[in-house]
């Protein structure tokens, strides 16, 4: 006989096991790794080893953490990643809001079509879309030549659009824009139009109606969208890799380099943990904000 308690375990057991094996355990391994030494030829040094080999570096240490905080460059890369994430989120808000508002205020029969058009690019492969931007921003593209010819009129030297922070930003915004449009649209669509009538009736002009009625009610949507943009951007490495120059390295790239390049696994683990902690803090902030907002909606 399957009791209520047993049923609960049967239901949640398998997913729990999955998460334990493939999420909790690896995370713990990662944390453990960050306290170890890198092996002589990459990988990890064994915990215990006969003295004399591997420069005497074995066992556990906090050396990687000291290393992280010793060189300012790592902090710089963290801050730069933050800056790109913040800028991307702001740009997404600015670009997504008018579009989401337009779709939400369109006639019902057009809305689904418009949302489908927003989501359609996801049908194609992520990397292919990034490569497409390489072509659009490349020096031989029509777009680049147009920009450069305009600059030439003002006597400015031609610029390369590709392999720059500008290209990285474009790539990030392009990929993440739907993640801002959709939550924002879902929120805006639920607004009661009579509130705008009431505001107008009480003396509010167009701008005041937006600022006092539409904007405050859309904040939860903005918050959801921001979380869906900021956190992924922080950890991205494909876009800086493909579209960025040598200066545009972000945390994600750094981590990837440690594991696949210099093969300093402990340091890679440390970086991952620093990133995870940061993301947890940000996520916590977002969710605190969300709870603060929903007390009246």
């Amino acid at each position, binding site marked *: 006989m399957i009791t209520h308690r047993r049923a609960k375990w049967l239901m949640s057991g398998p997913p729990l096991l999955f998460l334990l094996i493939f999420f909790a355990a690896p995370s713990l391994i990662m944390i453990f790794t960050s306290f170890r030494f890198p092996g002589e030829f990459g990988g990890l040094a064994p915990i215990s080893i006969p003295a004399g080999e591997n420069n005497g570096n074995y066992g556990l240490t906090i050396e990687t953490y000291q290393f992280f905080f010793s060189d300012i460059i790592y902090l710089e890369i963290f801050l730069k990643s933050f800056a790109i994430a913040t800028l991307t989120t702001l740009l997404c808000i600015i670009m997504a809001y008018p579009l989401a508002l337009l779709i939400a205020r369109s006639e019902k029969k057009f809305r689904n079509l418009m949302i489908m058009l927003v989501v359609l690019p996801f049908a194609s492969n992520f990397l292919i879309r990034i490569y497409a931007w390489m072509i659009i921003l490349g020096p031989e593209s029509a777009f680049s030549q147009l920009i450069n010819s305009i600059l030439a009129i003002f006597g400015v030297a031609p610029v390369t659009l590709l392999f720059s922070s500008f290209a990285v930003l474009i790539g990030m915004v392009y990929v993440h824009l739907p993640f801002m449009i959709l939550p924002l649209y879902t929120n805006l669509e639920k607004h009661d139009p009579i*509130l705008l*009538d009431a505001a107008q*009736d009480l*003396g509010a002009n167009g701008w005041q109606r937006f600022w006092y009625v539409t904007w405050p009610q859309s904040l939860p949507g903005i918050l959801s969208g921001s979380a869906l943009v900021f956190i992924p951007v922080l950890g991205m490495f494909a876009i800086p890799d493909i579209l960025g120059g040598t200066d545009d390295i972000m945390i994600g790239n750094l981590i990837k380099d440690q594991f696949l390049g210099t093969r300093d696994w402990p340091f890679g683990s440390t970086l991952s943990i620093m990133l995870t902690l940061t993301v947890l803090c940000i996520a916590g902030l977002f969710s605190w904000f969300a709870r603060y907002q929903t007390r009246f909606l």
Partner: protein
Amino acid sequence: MTLLEIRNITKRFGNFVAVDDINLDIKAGEFFTLLGPSGCGKTTLLRMIAGFDAPDSGEILLDGHNIIDVPPEKRPFHTVFQSYALFPHMTVADNIGFPLKMSGKSLEEINTRVASTLKEVELSQFADRYPHELSGGQKQRVAFARGLINQPRLLLLDEPLGALDEKLRENMQRELINLQAEAGVTFIYVTHAQNEALALSHRIAIMNQGRIEQIGEPSRIYNYPVNRFVADFIGKINMLDATVIKTSSSHLTLKVAGLGEVTVPARDGIKVNDRGVMAVRPEQIRMVAQTSEIADEFQFTGKIKDFFYIGDVTTYIIDLANSTRIEALLPNSLPGHAKLFEIGDPIIVSWQEQSAQFLLN
């Protein structure tokens, strides 16, 4: 003193004429009601006064100036919506203070006036609550407070009591009458509930299919309906087919189906052979047992067919000769009794001559 003049206002939605050449004068300080069945155009007219819809033709004059082209936010009118339309993301205090903020008053002034308004509507302790934390009646009061706080020249109310239960509705009706009298603000009230209209208004305009059937004080409309529609819409009324057989300056003599000859007060514009109905209100009908005698000129014998008891009054369905049926309303003034007569009782029915009237078809 006339506040608002509505001149030849017409509004069409495609082929449907929602408001058909309406003319109306609203007096300052009055409680004016637009009453009519669903779809009669009363809400459309209200929206045009508020400025949310533009009429296809006609003018609306405030102090003699046409305000057709003035947008809603610039008109000195406020609306109380049926769903109250309180801003869910603002506190009660912020909701009430919103119109003051929009007209650019200082923060200090807003706070003082909101505080005193909250006291007037007895919601002071709810100042920092949000609309979803209020009951229906409380939301109602916030909506009124918000509409009245900056003393608009006109308050437009679109069936504001529709969502309330009966007891609360009655209480709010009394509050509304006091509110309007104290504030001195002109109210234009839209409803389809005729009892409410009769109870609240100084004057009522009965609307039907985009046109105004009659305008007047409640008692005038009730006692002297100008046509069949008005007579039927307001209260209950007995209507028996009748033809005019004689006219005079004071009376009309009718041949009423099933009853024979009956005289009613005279009415302008009625000629011999006009067809219509003889109309008499149930509460004007007098009933006595057949064993008694009445002195009234016309009396008719009949039997009680059925009755409806609603506590304070009972409506009796009476079958007269020739299967003519009328209804009579009598108060249950005999303590402990649900009704004064039983089904099948033979009774005599009569009414005073001035109680009945002739209405043209």
